[in-house]
């Protein structure tokens, strides 16, 4: 939250004016306030809006006076209502529009670049205006815990629209309700992270706007504002490099960690929980045929992992068994040709040695993601392929022979018994 961007010059001018005319100002303000409230403190004061809906015109005096603008007069903001004609002239005379940007220039500038203002300019009725997030007469500074824009309340403020099922459906914001997912997230638990931490506030932009904090290739930087070390690791990794170059298939933070519902990795529901990394998270791309075709990587590593001891034990719930990240790293995954990679040929002995103390140089040689096949490229793959075929033939013949022999034996003995 950037606060109240009242320009320095404005303050200078204002303080001058205030010091000169303070008594008069207060007098005018008070007079103004009591004059307006003469009607507007009536809780039953209502009007019909153009659609015929009833609109309360009540203004709470206490609420206003305790607000950050409590010292201002009504006409400071309601600049178009200069005289009392509006009360008699009805809606046409009452040009009630309030222009916050007169004082809050920076905020207005940012807001005009953001998604909400653009939608309003397009005529979307339900896009947020200043007062949608900040309130109207009872605006509090964002440091005040009662403020709609206090860090603890922002979520509720945004959720007024963004957790509304109808709203979400109407605006095609996806099937999930961001607020619901966020409720269970680790960020929510910290109490320090809220919607605006990632989305920005006045200038929050659309997902497809390249300047947006949540634009695909900007996500690592957005997350990096709190997790700088990880972002540094990630931007140097193969995933980070490709994502920065605009490869939409390459993962960013959210691809693996989730979006609104990010959970701690110890949480079993987290996609980066050690129980899920090798079952869903890495395979979501590395076992996907489309991506494999495009990047000329195969789905073999995933398949062969699942059939290796590591993969089999992992599938059975063994958390000591190696998963993808155990050998390839986490945020700093690099291609095996990169000398800094954990799976670079000279680093493999050390990588294997993490779990297999005493692993020799020879230990790390040979094809790791081997698949038994008589047509395999690797010699070992071929040998295992032939062993497999030999054994299958052996099993079929031996067991088949036994079944046949025993069946005849059983049949004969049964027939003999019947006679």
């Amino acid at each position, binding site marked *: 939250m950037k606060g109240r961007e009242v320009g320095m010059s404005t303050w200078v001018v204002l303080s001058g004016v205030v010091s000169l005319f303070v008594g008069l100002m207060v007098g005018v303000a008070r007079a103004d306030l009591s004059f307006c409230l003469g009607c507007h403190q009536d809780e039953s004061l209502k009007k019909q809006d153009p659609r015929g809906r009833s609109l309360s015109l009540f203004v709470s005096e206490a609420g206003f006076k305790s607000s950050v603008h409590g010292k201002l007069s009504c006409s400071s903001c309601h600049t178009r209502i200069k005289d009392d004609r509006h009360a008699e002239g009805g809606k046409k005379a009452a040009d009630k529009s309030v222009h916050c940007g007169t004082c809050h220039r920076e905020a207005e500038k940012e807001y005009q670049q953001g998604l909400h203002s653009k939608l309003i300019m397009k005529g979307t009725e339900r896009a947020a205006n200043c007062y949608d997030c900040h309130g109207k007469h009872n605006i509090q500074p964002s440091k005040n815990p009662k403020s709609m824009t206090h860090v603890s309340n922002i979520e509720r403020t945004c959720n007024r629209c963004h957790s509304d099922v109808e709203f979400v459906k109407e605006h095609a914001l996806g099937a999930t309700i961001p607020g619901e997912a966020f409720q269970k997230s680790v960020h929510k638990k910290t109490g320090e992270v809220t919607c605006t931490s990632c989305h920005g506030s006045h200038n929050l932009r659309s997902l497809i706007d390249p300047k947006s904090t949540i634009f695909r290739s900007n996500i690592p930087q957005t997350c990096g504002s709190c997790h700088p070390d990880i972002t540094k690791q990630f931007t140097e990794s193969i995933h980070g490099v490709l994502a920065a170059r605009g490869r939409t298939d390459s993962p960013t933070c959210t691809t693996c960690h989730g979006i609104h519902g990010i959970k701690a990795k110890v949480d079993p529901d987290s996609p980066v929980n050690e129980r899920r990394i090798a079952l869903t998270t890495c395979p979501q791309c590395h076992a996907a045929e489309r991506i494999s075709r495009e990047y000329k990587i195969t789905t073999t590593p995933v398949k062969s992992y699942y059939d290796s001891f590591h993969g*089999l034990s992992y599938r*059975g719930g063994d958390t000591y*068994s190696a998963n993808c990240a155990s050998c390839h790293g986490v945020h700093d995954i690099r291609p095996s040709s990169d000398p800094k990679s954990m799976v670079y040929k000279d680093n493999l002995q050390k990588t294997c040695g993490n779990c297999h103390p005493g692993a020799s140089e*020879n230990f790390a040689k*040979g094809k790791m993601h081997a698949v038994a096949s008589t047509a395999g490229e690797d010699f070992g793959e071929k040998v295992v392929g032939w062993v497999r075929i030999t*054994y299958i033939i052996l099993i079929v013949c031996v067991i088949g022979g*036994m079944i046949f022999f025993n069946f005849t034996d059983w049949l004969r003995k049964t027939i003999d018994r019947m006679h």
Partner: protein
Amino acid sequence: MAKKYLRMTLNERVQHINLFINFTILVITGFALKYPEAFWVSPITDVPGGMTLRGFLHRLSGVAIVTLGGYHILYMLFTQRGRGILKDMVPVVKDLRDAWETLKNNLFINRPAKEIKMPRFNFREKAEYLGLIWGTIVMTVTGFILWFEVEWLKFFPKWTFDVARAIHFYEAILATLTIIVWHFYSVIFNPDVYPMSWAWITGHLTEHEMEKEHGLELERLKAEEKGKLVEFGEAAAVGGGRVYPLRGERREKIFPIKRLYGTVQGLNQTIKNWKGE
């Protein structure tokens, strides 16, 4: 009371039960690794650390079976009964002929059916015993390669490890199916012994079972009993109708190696005596 014939001494029955339990544990814990999503594996995978415990149990039972195998070798070599079993277990051409004739009988090729008299260990048992030896050797070697992969891969390329994995798996399938198809038929589903041959618990076969499965041995024992076979004089029928081969007199000269494994004999002797008959 029908006459009973000793088939397995208590020592042998304990060996069999030991093998039975450990083999079952190995089969369950082994295939639980290969098929972790199978329904019957859920008791293992649902427990935290279940897979780790599974691996531990698998190795423990493996060691138990290897130890049992070592004991069995000593038993077969250094007890008189063991040497007798070993001698009778050697496959001969007659076994092939027995199997062939049995098949011809079964398929009504022999009309009328030929009466086949089989020795103390018939072709079924000999084949199975040989298979058991073969399987134990293969599983032990490949199993230890998989267990001590760091040591093994100091000297051998990784593909040998992969081959060991493949063999360990397929040999396991072969062994398990052999037990189910061959052994369970012999001792359970065979109409002559159904619902079960109780020899693995009681230690003896009935005369009926002897006649069906070991006709030759039955004849020999009966002849022996009558004192016709003088060269087998030391093995007389004793003990309430049961037929025991008596232990020979202790040899005056004791070989050092025999003394080394004297414990094996001693244990066998103790167990036998403890039987109290």
